[in-house]
């Protein structure tokens, strides 16, 4: 295959992955809401409702607080841009994403963090108490979640001697024993805790609340409207799909395309959607039976996640 054809394929792969996640994010939100409402005895909105909401939001006027600066506008854009950038280069439908060699777990996490930081900054830029409250709380949770996250990455990276994402997914295909190893399982459990915390799901934050005193994420984005709000909803849902996609590919890599070829890629895409839908449903079911934790109980949850990850890292070294 010529260089040009290879580059074109890579670009195509990136575009398809991004489009899939852009559509899949809102659909996952719709699915999770649907599951919730059915379990609560309601019919609920159709699964594609979030997509309709987005269409409506993008057509509306954007409002910004009078004394805000350019940072307020940059927040939503960077939130989506960071999500797009990491989705394009990550092993979601295939283990051969574009620039796969330099798609590093640490780098991906820090790029996502850039989006969160800009969102927290733009919340402070609104000049209101709510913005500051959401920003402060989400930064606190982020600071406490980071040890669990990075040690979990470390624990997963030790057996394969690399933190390269495609390699981490591929080793599950070639050496399934790695997935069943305590290191990987403990690390993934910790990763799941971090995902719930970072994407503002129960028991960390209630995504459907607008009660001032308890909200975290919603408080941060309170001043956004129109297309900006649309971008934030989209960005958050893309991050959720991305993180869950990574989680399932690290846990059950089968189905992901490991060879070049359109058929394998489509199979990978379908497999990814199914796996993410199953995990999303499970999280929705879990949310129905869970209450939100108090903010000051969260350190215990995140410390628990950290301990799991540390155990994983230690067993990874001992097992060698």
């Amino acid at each position, binding site marked *: 295959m010529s260089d040009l054809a290879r580059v074109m394929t890579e670009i195509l792969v990136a575009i398809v992955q991004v489009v899939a996640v852009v559509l899949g994010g809102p659909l996952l939100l719709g699915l999770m809401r649907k599951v919730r409402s059915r379990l609560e005895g309601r019919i609920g909105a159709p699964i594609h409702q979030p997509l309709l909401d987005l269409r409506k939001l*993008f*057509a509306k*006027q*954007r*409002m*910004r*607080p*009078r004394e*805000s*600066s*350019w*940072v307020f506008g940059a927040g939503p*854009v960077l939130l989506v*841009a*960071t999500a*797009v*950038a990491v989705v*394009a280069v990550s092993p979601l439908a295939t283990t051969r994403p574009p*620039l796969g060699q*330099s798609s590093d777990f*640490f*780098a991906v996490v*820090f790029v996502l*963090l*850039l989006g969160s*930081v800009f969102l*927290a*900054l733009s919340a*402070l*830029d609104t*000049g*209101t108490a*709510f*913005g*500051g409250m959401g*920003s*402060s709380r989400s*930064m*606190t949770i*982020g*600071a406490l979640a*980071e*040890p*669990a996250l*990075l040690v979990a990455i*470390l624990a997963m990276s*030790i057996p394969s*001697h*690399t*933190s390269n994402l495609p390699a981490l997914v591929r080793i599950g295909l070639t050496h399934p024993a790695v997935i069943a190893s305590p290191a990987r399982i403990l690390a993934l459990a910790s990763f799941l805790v971090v995902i719930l915390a970072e994407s503002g799901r129960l028991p960390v934050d209630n995504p459907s609340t607008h009660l001032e005193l308890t909200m975290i994420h919603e408080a941060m984005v309170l*001043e956004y409207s*129109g*297309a900006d709000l649309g971008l934030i909803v989209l960005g958050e849902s893309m991050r959720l799909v991305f993180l869950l996609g990574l989680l399932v590919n690290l846990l059950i890599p089968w189905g992901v395309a490991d060879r070049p070829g359109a058929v394998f890629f489509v199979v990978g895409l379908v497999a990814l959607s199914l796996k993410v839908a199953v995990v999303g449903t499970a999280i929705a079911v879990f949310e129905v039976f869970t209450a939100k934790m108090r903010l*000051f109980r969260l350190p215990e949850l995140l410390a628990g996640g*950290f301990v799991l990850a*540390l155990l994983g*890292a*230690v067993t*990874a*070294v001992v097992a060698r």
Partner: protein
Amino acid sequence: MNEVCVLTVALAGTAAAILGAALPPSTRVGAAVMFTWVSCVAALVAAVSVLHSGHVIALSSSAVIPLTGVTVVLDPLGAVFVIAIAVVALASTLYWLGYASHGLATRSASCALPLFVTSMLLVPFAASVATFLVLWELMALTSLVLVLTDQSRREAARSAAQWYAVMTHVGAAAILLALVMLSAHSGGQTFADIEAHARHLSGVARGTIFVIALLGFGSKAGAVPLHVWLPKAHAEAPGPASALMSGAMVNLGIYGIVLVGNVLLGGGPVWWWLLVSALGVVSALYGALYAATSSDLKRLLAYSTADNMGLVLIALGASGMFAASGHRSTAAIAMVAALLLMVNHSLFKGALFLAAGAVQVATGTRDLDRLGGLMRRMPVTGVVFLVGALSVAALPPLNGFVGEWLLFQGLLHGLPTSNTSVVISVAVAVAALALTGGLTVAAFVKATGIGFLGRPRSEEAAQAHEVAITMRAGAGALAALCLVLGLVPMLVLPALERGASSAGRRGATSSTNGWISLHLLGLHGVLAPSLLAGGLAAAALMVIATRRLVHRRSHAWPAINSTEPWGSGRQVQTARMQYTATSFAEPLQRVFDDVIRPSRDLDVSHLAESRYYIERIAYRTSSDDVLERQFYRPLIAGVRWWGQRARWLANGSVHRYLAYGLIALVIVLVVVA
């Protein structure tokens, strides 16, 4: 050529100091800055030629310091430090041109600042105990003068200078002791002599010397618990001086540790480096925690310096541990990571302190709770601070991220091949690093968000104007370098590798694929920072274009409209309703209550008529340094008590003093005999 450079550094620096002291106020700062630049450029030329050619510069003269003479050697390790210091000094002195009219044009300051820069530039050149100590003392004294610049206006500056003077001299005494022990053994006082003889020392003696030197240099690097002077002195020093102290001077503490540990003693057993790592972990966590809860802008930056130096120490310690267990390539990576973290820190902390100085000039305050809204009023300073903050927080595409990535890779690849004690300490180091990272992000979101965004919290902040062009240029240059090194770290990595290999950590660590991606040699680790940044920029443009495209098809106009934020139904929202730095940090402070032990004070005064009505509530909280309160205050009290008790020994009677002399002489004779 090289000799000329070294002489130029010293002579131009001295000339700058003399001119700064002698000329009238209108011209003294300009002249001092010109000659300081000559000195910096000469140092840069010398350092770059050493790194480029690999030949060390060596000079000696017996004429300059009586009895011992001066010995000057610049090896690649020293050259790395010289470059970092020279770059920060160039930017800070440019900034000084604009800052001078705000209280840094006095005779003493214009004399001390060039001398401070020159002595820092020359410390890595020193190659004998006497040369080193003279330059080290000169650096300490001139920076002390700079800390005292504002003492007539600020009581706190005097106390900060006192703390600084004591801590730096206790440190200098420890360094003196370590170096004298080394030279006593080797019989000569040049570093070459010491290096040749040090391997014949017993393990206990080597360990003792290393620990003493670590304490001495650690106090200069701001390692916790020897950091107490740092948040005081760095905060009280005027803008350019605090940038120089935090961006350049603390590096020399690291230089000293590498000099004694790696070069003079030629490496050591695992426990040395475990100690260094432990010091690093404690500094990193403690610094990050106090940075996250501090509400004074410059104190926050100073604590973050302790935190960053902790990261450098972790990397140094890891490098030593890997080398001691025989893993040369990971040891080399960790050493390069240490140097990169240090260079990065010089750049971003220099930029941040210069921006903080600009804020102080424009608003007259450093209290975050009285700032806000500066991004609109001081756009350049705001962006500089934001870039610096993102860089400290190790976010791509800035240089801080590359440094932390390299450190993580070093730890990750060193982990599986080491023995148990190393494994446990490395795992703890990664966890500490991660928590530090999280806290740093929170601290700098707070500093940027409360200080520069939102609405002004005081009249001064509302009236702020952008500072002079030279100040913006000085700070902006450092911020631009942060971005450049974040995109193309390969610009400096080869130089850092040479520096690392002259510190005994040989082995190529990275191969660069053009200017784009960074491969770790022999390991599976690749990073393409510029592609990452390019992808991000492309994605951001795509998002903006899509939003515009979609919006054009709708009928809402204008696309964006500014309005009052929502106030829960209230009509009027004041700036005081915003979160402050204190309230932002409150959740973290509460989580780490047991460590920080903040003091809280709640005063409720009731109306005279009825206790059911409250007239006023006053709430005060302060998180002063817990180590200062729990360790240093009792220590000082103890010393004072001892001093009081010892006063009866000196009652003014000459006979008594003669008796002391006689007793001492007898004791000495007994001991000698």
